[in-house]
């Protein structure tokens, strides 16, 4: 059994939800500088898989390993190297976009306001930095959550439909982000319903319904 | 037919009227309160039971009355604003709440200062006292509801609605002494027919009341100006008023 001591290894993961056998033995190895595009029809278990890989959900069978170690064992180190953007942008409505970034990123690494602002500018949400998240539009929220991923400087990215709610300019930014991340040695698992046309190698993992 | 009404209620007009009235209110308030204080503290004879302690009546009773009066103003202004969509009504209601809360607090504080010599305790859970405390809660509720909204327009409307709903409690506070037997003084002054209080005590008291009313008028004008300016800060006439 060849583990991937420098990457992420998902091994025979099984998950049942209610009566449904949602993940039926999913396996995949992902190395640094690799990007995996997870696709599949609605309800096929893409979000469930990402939650398993992030460690939020324990699979009934199978395991996830990071640098050769089970993520249950090395949870804190693994999660410190991880950035997860879920369906919902996970922003506190009463805090401004910048404050939201500060408290979420600040738990992973020391940052400065200017660095956070730069990340917001990069995703095109710079103008919203001082607005409470509650008043932002759907696309602006998505941009803030992507800026958070950027600012975390994590090596593992798990992105659940990062293109949702974004306009054309926003989509281009996401594609650029992904390319840069992979080029800089990161690895990413991205759920998307559309084709990713990126300038880097993209592996595809298709989940069956 | 209603146009004159709306014109009267237009913000620039109200702003001008408030600015013009304020000094008059203030001046007459000073006179009335001055007469009341001198009459009450110097000329009125000490009470045969309470000695000089009773003199706190000159602050206590007018502020207690004002606490109810201001609440009523606030509710009426709020109702006008909600029903006829007259924005100045919200400004009046918004300006009234802190004033009324202050009068309520004053009535509570002077009342309990008076309570110590009279009843031997600062506070008793008597209906009148409790209902005055509840009035304070009502004011606090209205004020915190207003500020709980990000959007000031919504806060205004929500607070106005609450003020109207809460107005039901005003008669309850007023008649609490009648309905429950209580420690507190029953109506002595505001009784129909002959008041059961001596003239040399009564006149300064009434004067104090008038003075408090006028003073309230002055503070209301002042706060109203601020509220109107703040609400209309986008509009042309405010810019002019500020620049000139």
């Amino acid at each position, binding site marked *: 059994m060849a583990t991937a001591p420098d990457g992420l290894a998902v091994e025979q993961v099984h998950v049942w939800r209610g009566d449904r056998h949602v993940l039926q033995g999913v396996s995949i190895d992902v190395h640094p500088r690799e990007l995996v595009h997870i696709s599949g029809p609605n309800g096929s278990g893409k979000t469930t898989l990402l939650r398993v890989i*992030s*460690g*939020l*959900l*324990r699979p009934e069978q199978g395991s996830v390993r990071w640098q050769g170690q089970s993520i249950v064992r090395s949870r*804190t*180190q*693994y*999660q*410190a*190297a*991880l950035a*997860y953007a*879920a369906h*919902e*942008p*996970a*922003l*506190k*409505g*009463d*805090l401004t976009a910048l*404050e939201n970034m500060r*408290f*979420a990123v*600040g*738990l*992973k*690494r*020391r940052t400065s306001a200017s660095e956070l602002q730069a990340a917001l500018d990069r995703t095109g949400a710079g103008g919203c930095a001082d607005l409470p998240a509650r008043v932002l539009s759907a696309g602006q929220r998505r941009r803030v959550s992507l800026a958070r991923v950027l600012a975390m400087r994590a090596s593992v990215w798990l992105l659940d439909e990062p293109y949702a709610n974004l306009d054309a300019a926003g989509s281009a930014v996401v594609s650029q982000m992904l390319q840069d991340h992979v080029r800089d040695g990161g690895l990413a698992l991205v759920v998307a319903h559309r084709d990713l046309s990126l300038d880097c190698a993209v592996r595809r993992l298709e989940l069956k319904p | 037919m209603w146009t004159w009404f709306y014109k009267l209620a237009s913000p620039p007009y109200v702003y001008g009227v408030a600015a013009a009235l304020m000094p008059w209110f203030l001046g007459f308030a000073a006179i009335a309160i001055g007469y009341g204080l001198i009459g009450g503290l110097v000329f009125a004879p000490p009470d045969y039971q309470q000695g000089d302690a009773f003199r706190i009546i000159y602050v206590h009773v007018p502020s207690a009355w004002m606490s109810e009066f201001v609440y009523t103003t606030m509710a009426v202004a709020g109702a006008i604003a909600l029903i006829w969509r007259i924005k100045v009504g919200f400004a009046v209601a918004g300006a009234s709440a802190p004033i009324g809360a202050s009068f309520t607090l004053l009535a509570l504080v002077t009342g309990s200062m008076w309570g110590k010599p009279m009843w031997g*305790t*600062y*506070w*008793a*859970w*008597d*209906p009148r006292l*409790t209902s005055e*405390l*509840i009035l304070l*809660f009502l004011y*606090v509720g209205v*004020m*915190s509801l207003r*500020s*709980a909204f990000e959007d000031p327009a919504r806060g205004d409307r929500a607070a106005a609605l609450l003020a109207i709903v809460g107005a039901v409690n005003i008669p309850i506070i007023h008649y609490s002494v009648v309905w*429950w037997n209580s420690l507190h003084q029953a109506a002595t002054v505001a009784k129909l027919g002959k008041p059961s209080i001596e003239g040399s005590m009564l006149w300064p008291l009434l004067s104090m009341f008038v003075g408090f009313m006028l003073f309230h008028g002055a503070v209301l004008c002042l706060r109203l100006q601020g509220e109107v300016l703040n609400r209309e800060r986008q509009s042309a006439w405010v810019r002019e008023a500020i620049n000139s």
Partner: protein
Amino acid sequence: MSVGAWEAFFLVILREMRLSFRRPEQLLQPLVFFLIVTTLFPLGLNLQLSLLRDMAPGVLWVAALLSSLLSLDSLFKGDADDGTLEQLTLSGQSLTVIVAAKTVAHWLVTGIALVVVSPVVGTALGIPTSAFATMMLSLALGTLTLSWLGAIGAGLTIGVRRGNVLLSLIVLPLAMPLLIFGAGATDRAMSGTSVAGALYFLAALCVFTCTLAPFAATAALRITVE
């Protein structure tokens, strides 16, 4: 550049404070609730004053429990609803540290405020000044313990609709000893007998909860977050 546990602890406290102070008038609300509940009792009792003094410690403590409880309900709920709890869980910091920070912040915002206004309420209920020190000390210990108990309950009830009622079901029975000894201490201080026993017991309870509750609350959260 990784972030230490203490740093994370203070960052989370800062976050909670920022959230509370964003609407300063809301800080007053548990206080006002405390005042209102204490007002309710005399009203409901038809105002026999002698009675009131006897039940003052009980009223005070019940009001403090309820008002602290009411605000506990939102301890994790808000974060769970908007997805930020997931982000906190994945932050790479020990969840215990985060839970501890949130709980302490809750106590700093509500518990201390209750302790500070308790003399006012105490006076109104006829508690003599001589009993204030005991009352305040016991309330401080009690509310801190309660915040911890509440954190366990709040962790267990995330994701359950009408969580606040369930929360009180879980927390109130745990809080019974608090109430008995807390009100007891104030009662004894009022009648001038020795209060040391009750206070020691409260202090012991507080230390005990502060040591174990963070782990229990973390476990509770983990169970419900999955």
